[in-house]
């Protein structure tokens, strides 16, 4: 019973408290790039979620075998192979989605969310919990993409999932589906989420960790510690 409850928690944290896009500010590139239409956003969310769940399961299952020293390259290989498998399946069975996502489909490899979860969760937790964690994060990612793309498609193209909306479709505010609109909607969405978080007494979302990349956990091990180490050595 206790186990079940904690699994539920693992799942739901990815959607609200630790939403990868809106709270942890990970995976910003695909969020901005594929949210021009609800359809491509959902496609991206689904593809990334599949990769996330599979890689979390594989990495968790192999966590005791993968040597500490080469774990990052090992994770990258595992993630890249799942991405390629998903890419081939999409090309074969959903060629339209492949056209919409274009280069962003193979770029799931460098989606910080996936490597981040591998390092922060799957490498330390059992298979089932990792799978649930991956699923929760995937759903959270997809939800954020869905929100972004709904706003952008409704205002920018006057349609929703390709169905045109009367009045709006005659007067679309094009800027919303152009690149600036992506930044703008994301900024406003972050502000709204921050406002809710503040009401609940939670900290606001910020880019954190080592100065550059928000992929705090992974990159810390990779570079920041090294950087700090170097700084110490030279000092």
């Amino acid at each position, binding site marked *: 019973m206790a186990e079940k409850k904690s699994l539920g928690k693992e799942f739901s944290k990815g959607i609200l408290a630790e939403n990868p896009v809106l709270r942890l500010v990970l995976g910003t590139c695909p969020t901005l790039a594929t949210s021009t*239409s609800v359809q491509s956003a959902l496609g991206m969310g689904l593809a990334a979620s599949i990769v996330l769940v599979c890689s979390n399961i594989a990495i968790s299952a192999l966590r005791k075998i993968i040597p500490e020293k*080469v774990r990052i390259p090992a994770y990258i290989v595992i993630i890249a192979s799942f991405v390629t498998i998903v890419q081939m399946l999409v090309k074969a069975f959903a060629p339209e989605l492949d056209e919409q996502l274009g280069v962003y489909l193979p770029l799931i490899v460098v989606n910080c969310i996936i490597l981040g979860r591998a390092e922060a969760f799957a490498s330390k937790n059992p298979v089932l919990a990792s799978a649930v964690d991956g699923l929760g994060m995937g759903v959270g990612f997809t939800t954020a993409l869905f929100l972004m793309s709904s706003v952008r498609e409704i205002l920018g*193209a006057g349609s929703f999932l390709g169905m045109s909306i009367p009045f709006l479709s005659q007067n*679309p505010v*094009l800027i919303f589906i152009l690149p600036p609109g992506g930044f703008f909607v994301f900024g406003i969405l972050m502000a709204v989420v921050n406002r809710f978080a503040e009401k609940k007494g939670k900290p606001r979302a910020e880019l954190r960790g080592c100065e550059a990349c928000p992929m705090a956990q992974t990159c810390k091990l990779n570079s920041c510690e090294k950087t700090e180490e170097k700084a110490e050595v030279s000092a």
Partner: protein
Amino acid sequence: MKKKMNPKDILVPAVMLLIICLVTTVLLALTNSVTKTKIAQNAADKETSSRAEVLPEATQFSEVKIDEATGVTYCEGKNASGESVGYVFTSSAKGYGGDVTVMTGVGSDGKITGVTILSHGETPGLGANSTKPEFRNRFIGKSGELVVNKTSNDGQNVQAITAATITSKAVVAAVNDALSVFSEVSGGAENG
């Protein structure tokens, strides 16, 4: 910082990494063998349906040839009784977001029977509107050298898409390439 390394400390991780790479490669090769034919089939299907769309009279197509000078590829379309009804050309021109690849159908009389956009990187909502029939149908029935015009669609003019003149120019340039190759090929065929 670094202590002397035990050979085992280097070997074990390296071997593990190698094993992981091998296993994933095998997995990928398997998926590839399953999906390869399907992917090729998808591409072929798309090609066939686009051809049928731009040259509706044709029921069969000859082998694809390439015009060396312009890089335009083309094939001849024939009706059920084997008579030539025109040509289908694939040409591309530079648009706002990279190459716009256009397939143009030209009837035996030299008039355009249909235009379709095979691939493009144009802005959604602006240049991407070139894939809509409203724009593509503006080409039908035209022949000779076409020019982009902002307001009119008469004669040699092709009315541009609102706020997407560059894309419109690219499509027209690609169609003009197709038409010029047509005059060579069809002329050559008559002489021969």
